[in-house]
């Protein structure tokens, strides 16, 4: 099977000039390589500052790489011209941590959902409305809320709306940058289930960026552990969790706060 996304030797260098004029260089990504197959989930885990979010912005073409190759469905999107890249961009969507700050507070749910469709310029007014309703149902929201503002929605509803917007252009790859971290536990579980459902019904592929190893373990097929811009350990989720090798992985595992679950009574359904 052809991988959906294959990246090789990604390198991203930020140059910053301090007040005294000395040049400092920061290597945010350093020889990062991995592949994701269609319909699977790769979780990228790491501590703050490990380069996870830089990776997300580079893949979504929001930042340019210093060097490296990104093949999406066999095409090297780094080498593509702007016009050709515009064809690829809708197929890779990015979702952020805080739904409250990634949705325009003055726009209604409908306006938020049709914006990506308007930008594509391929849809008629009526079509767009239908599609918005369809997207809302797909993420488990009632079409009755189209007139509401994001502030009138709960945290879980807002994140569902963000997912619906990300799905508007039928992307093949969804990059979730800490998309669950800002949510309450019970809402996290609802959204995690929604992501799993969408994966089985639409064959979605996810790149799930997180510092929560437990959630990574639950959602991902493969896990890549990052530290200071490098992938230090990578493999099937189960193997990483059961036989962690690198000290970063061990540190992340040790830091997963847990309640002793053995004694928890089952929830009667």
């Amino acid at each position, binding site marked *: 099977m052809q991988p959906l996304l294959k990246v090789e030797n990604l390198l991203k260098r930020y140059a910053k000039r301090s007040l005294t004029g000395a040049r400092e260089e920061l290597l945010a990504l350093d020889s990062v390589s991995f592949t994701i197959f269609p319909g699977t989930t790769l979780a990228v885990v790491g501590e703050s500052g490990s380069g996870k979010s830089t990776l997300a912005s580079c893949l979504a073409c929001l930042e340019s790489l210093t060097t490296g190759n990104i093949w999406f469905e066999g095409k090297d999107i780094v080498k593509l011209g702007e016009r050709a890249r515009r064809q690829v961009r809708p197929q890779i969507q990015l979702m952020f941590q805080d739904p409250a700050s990634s949705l325009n507070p003055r726009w209604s749910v409908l306006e938020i959902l049709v914006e990506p469709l308007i930008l594509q310029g391929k849809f008629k007014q009526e079509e767009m409305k239908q599609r918005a309703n369809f997207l809302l149902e797909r993420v488990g929201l009632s079409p009755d809320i189209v007139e509401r503002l994001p502030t009138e929605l*709960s945290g879980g509803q807002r994140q569902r709306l963000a997912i619906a917007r990300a799905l508007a252009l039928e992307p093949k790859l969804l990059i979730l940058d800490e998309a669950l971290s800002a949510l309450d536990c019970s809402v996290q579980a609802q959204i995690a289930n929604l992501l799993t459902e969408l994966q089985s019904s639409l064959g979605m592929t996810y790149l799930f960026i997180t510092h929560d190893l437990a959630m990574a373990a639950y959602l991902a097929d493969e896990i890549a552990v990052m530290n200071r811009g490098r992938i230090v350990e990578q493999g099937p989720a189960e193997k990483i969790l059961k036989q962690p090798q690198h000290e970063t992985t061990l540190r992340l595992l040790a830091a997963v706060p847990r309640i002793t679950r053995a004694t928890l009574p089952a929830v009667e359904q």
Partner: protein
Amino acid sequence: MASVLEIRDLHVSYRSREGVLCPALNGISLALMPGEILGVLGESGSGKSTLAVSLVRLLPGNGEITRGAVHFEGKDLLQTKLEELQQIRGRRISLIFQEPSLALHPTMRAGQQVRQVLAAHSSQGKSGLNEGTRQVFAEVFPEEVDRISRSYPHQLSGGQRQRVLIAQAIVCGPSVVIADEPTASLDPATQMEILGVFRTLRARLGLAMIFITHNPALLSGFADRVMILYGGQVVECGPAETVLASPRHPYTKALFQSIPAVSDGRGSSRKTRLPVIPGDSSPSSLPRGGCPFEPRCTERMNICREREPALVNLGESHVVSCFKYEN
């Protein structure tokens, strides 16, 4: 033993733009013991942050304390004069907020920001203030006292900024610290580090703490007692070990179940769903009369809709508000 802080039947409401009072806290009562770490657990909208700010009357303009009392050092904080309250805020009771980067002044050195708090509450001279600041930095940054106190907030990591806020909170030697989601914006390793700092301080200074969080797992091995809020009410409260290991209220049980454990990795059991609590807890979906959790509860009975459950004592100061445990 006498409590350091006692809250009695606290009711707080917010006035909406249309002038309607929306209840946020419905009769919270609580006694905090000296040196105790009380974990307050609740999801968004449960009233946990309202609780933190209403204890020292820092509610936003549309917030109103409609009933109740907060007893601290022989005074009712809800009735004291503002000047008296100013002497208590930051000196005897201090607050730590979630976002360390927003709570610090961006163009003032860390040491200066801590020193200012001390200066506001003491009549010491220059050298006394410097010494006091140095001591508190030594407490939270055992290794790099000088470098950190000369740094600006942007030169510090998230964990270090949170430590500066802790230094501000303890510099006047308070007996109660209220921390509202102090670790929510930090990564797990740093979270653990900050919890470690709190535990050390508790042991060294005998601080009592109200630690507010939405993450039950953080409280395990950290808090002495856990109080769970839902819809502005206490649904369960008891010793941390007992509540975390064997929760009794249907909400607490369902909440704990919805958190995946590392050992729940997909592997062979691929596509298993996480147990969820149906519905949401937004204020508009909370029922009036009856138990606030009733619409989402899997164990609901007829009585749950008729009246509010009272707190039932299950022994060892473990209380739960659910009709299942009455009689």
